[in-house]
């Protein structure tokens, strides 16, 4: 099932429209123009030696798409797939990547002036993955930075098996 994402109103320059979702207890959002589609998780093929955040790859209408568990990147325990789990396919530098989220929320329009830097305690752990936070009626929404989340720095991509890392390092860049 693919949820249609139609903006309720024309985009205004001083508002940011976001697709929101839950990762555990936290409410998070991603700018809607980065999201391609959302659907229930499909069959995943596990990938040996992939980084721990990679749950597998899936067939998205002929394209082999990596599916990531953002909880692992953020340091939470890995996601447990329930009936509410959704796969949010985002665009990341020419590639499409699926993010497993625990629950999908509404599309929310947030005024830019309402976006603040994350509070100190959050900034320490999650800081580099967040573009900011904003207060909604229903609580605090953390705005995820997809680039940072999926960034392939050395530690994030270091595969489980160190022999591969060693041999990969020995190979050309």
């Amino acid at each position, binding site marked *: 099932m693919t949820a249609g994402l139609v903006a309720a109103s024309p985009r205004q320059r001083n508002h940011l429209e976001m697709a929101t979702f839950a990762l555990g207890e936290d409410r998070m959002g991603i700018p809607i123009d980065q999201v391609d589609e959302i659907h229930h998780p499909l069959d995943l093929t596990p990938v040996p030696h992939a980084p721990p955040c990679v749950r597998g790859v899936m067939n998205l209408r*002929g394209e082999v798409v990596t599916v990531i568990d953002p909880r692992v990147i953020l340091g939470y325990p890995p996601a447990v797939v329930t009936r509410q789990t959704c796969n949010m396919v985002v665009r990341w530098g020419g590639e499409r990547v699926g993010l497993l989220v625990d629950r999908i929320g509404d599309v929310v329009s947030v005024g830019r002036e309402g976006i603040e830097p994350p509070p100190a305690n959050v900034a320490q752990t999650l800081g580099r993955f967040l573009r900011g936070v904003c207060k909604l009626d229903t609580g605090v929404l953390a705005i995820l930075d997809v680039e940072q989340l999926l960034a392939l720095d050395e530690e994030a991509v270091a595969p489980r098996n160190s022999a591969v890392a060693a041999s990969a390092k020995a190979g050309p860049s």
Partner: protein
Amino acid sequence: MSLDDKDIIAEFVVESREHLADIENELLAIEACGENIDGDLVNKVFRAVHSIKGAAGFFGFSQVQGLAHELENVLNLIRNRKLVPTSPVTDVLLRAADRLRGMIEDVEHSNDVDVSEHVAELRAVAAGEPAFAPPTVAELTSSEHEEAPDPERQLQVVENLVARAATEGATAGPAPAAVPRPASSAAAPREAGTAEAAPRESKSSAPSPLGETSIRVAVNILDRLMTLAGELVLARNQLLQTASTADSSAWGAVVARVNQVTSELQETIMQTRLQPIGAVFSRFPRVIRDLSSALGKQCQLTIEGQEVELDKSIIEAIGDPLTHLVRNAVDHGIEAPEARVKAGKPPAGTVALRAFHQAGKVSIQIHDDGRGIDAARLKEKAVAQGILTPEQARAMSDREALLLIFRPGLSTADKVTSVSGRGVGMDVVKTNIERLGGTVAVDTQLGRGTTIDVRLPLTLAIVPALIVRCCGQRYAIPQANIRELVRVKSRDAAKSFERIQGAEVFHLRETLLPLVRLDAALDRGEPRDAPAAKALNIIVVEAGSLRYGLVVEGLCDSEEIVVKPLGRHMKRCACLAGATILGDGKVALILDIAGIASHMRLAMPETESAADASGSGALGETQSLLLFTNHPSEYFGIPMELVARLERVRTDQIDRLGGQQILQYRGGTLPLFSLEDGVECKARPQASKVYVAVFATAEREAGLIVPEIIDIRSVPTRVDTETFRQPGITGSLVFERMTVRLVDLHELARKLRPDWYQSRSAVPTPNGAAPRILVAEDSDFFRKQLIGFFAAEGYEVQAAEDGAAAWDLLADPANRFDAVVTDIEMPNLTGLELARRIRGDARFADLPIIAVTSLAGDDDIRRGLQAGINEYHVKLDREQLMAATARLLKASLPRAASRSKP
């Protein structure tokens, strides 16, 4: 700038690029013609520059316009035969064309570029400055005119001129390839003037390509076509799958038709992506020309097979590696002209580029007739850099040594020139070629030349593959990597699978192949140490020069799969080459055969055998072994020298007494041992008759029950002392596909009848220290054994690898030895010579010398005793050896002590 302007400028850039694409080779061809100016060719270049000038003016790119204008002037003079395109002139033209090209690439900033230098040069050329005039020809002819018209000399002059024309013509290179137009599948190469020395051309001359119908298509549309073709292939696969299960009568014809059309469509679309490799080759004449002149060498380039076609993506990726290889050939391969002449070669070297189809792949060969690669120097450098140990280098063959050039950091260049060594090493070349699914091999003849052979697959996107099962998932193996499929039944598995030096190998006809279990390689499922109970599927795969067996659970179909890239998060997964979508819509990962090999650290077969040889027995050393089985599936061996007799007895003659087996024998009793009592092995089956190998130990006789004798053979002693080591087994060796464990009779007897053996320790020297033994033995295996024997009894041992080294140790006044135990057959100084030297030195007149040897005929013994050897003993007869040493030392130590007393 408005959006429309951007579009038009983009058009301008594309067109200009096309105009300038061949300008390099055309200028080189013009240079080659020299005075015989080819008007058509010059016109072509002129028109190209003229168009660019015009359009640039329209857009206001004044610098581009200005430079083009000056270029035009010079070209105009040439086409009107008012200027000869000499090398200096061509240099100027080439530089200007390079700059023009650079400006087109960044056309929006081109007005900021300073072209005054080029303009000045071009103007100087146009003005006819003497530096650019062709001096030598005029000088040559005029100097000849000054002398008397001697027919001999005139002939010489003519010969010189012809030779010059030939080398200059060839230096410029042959026909350049045509512009690679995306939508055309075959391109006609253009003629390069009248360069008569130009070697074999692939197609005959066809003038301007105006008659060719072609169309320019955006590359992304072609990519889309390729993707659609791929999807169609998948759908066709699904259809075939469904049709095979359904009632196929009505479906049959339709499905067959769809199948056929899909295949043809896929092939045709693949062809649109095929481009002639000439597109890549065309840059090399310039590369060689510039490089040769920079290094002061003379090189000619021959190109063959420009029309051979490769997938566009491979064409794009192969350029840099090939460039590096060509530069290497000129830099390291071709010698300076003087050196070449001294070596009896023509002063100009030849680099030959050749592309051709072979066995479903495209071969690209780069051959130079230069100095070749010196394997010995390679090994030296490798040892100096710590990449190899001296032993490994010694054991390595020249052919294996050649592969060292692909190791990072290894270069035998005397100095890093500015030309080579820009951080692009042969290791990167090899890796990049392998990334494309290709292989690279090297062949060389010292002093004669080198050939590098690059093999590439025809296309990347759709490949035939075998789908296999492993741990509940399916994986695809590209057919190109598969050599054979082998199915091993459980009962044969034990025989075919072995562990050699810790790694699993398996017997495939005459060879041993490393074995990789896919579940272990991918870290999925339980690693299993022993072969599973069911039959096993082994896929013999190959990547480059490495071949191994991949064990999988099961085989599915062969399919044509569409290769899809894996996301960036998987870029470090060495074992995976991509992914594909199977007929049922599930994703299957594609295995990277080379990646799996490096992940599992599979040594190359050559180095494996070298390691095998170096770690164990000396090559050429053989032993006479009694080969037998205890349980029919397990092979053992005993050195024949230790066997006093072989008897055949009835098992009902064997009695058991107090838990021991004995045999009524020759009026007495002979204690018998069963192998399984002392060594981990399977028990012998019931039989009515068995053999008994009688041997002497601890001053008595005993017998080992040998159920089934295979043979008595002279066997090379390459013993693996690691894998099967346990008390009673000294090690193992592989002989005719059998893994044979060597039984140590003395150890076995000692284990089963410890009461026979008095605890014996070394006779101490008078001052209380342990006696020191010098062991001289070139075989690693026997040396280790001897050291072990003596050390176990409390002696201090030092060992030498040959007689000369032993003498050095002995003669060193800092050392003191109480006895020498030496082999006879050794390099540098034999045991006999060592003994003579020892006896010849007054210090050692009394030193006990024991020879351990496998040769001990009466003559040998006589000679040995004459040379001064005290006693001869058989190798590995530990008891005798230890007893003899103790005995001799008991006599000699007191004498030595009394002599050294002041």
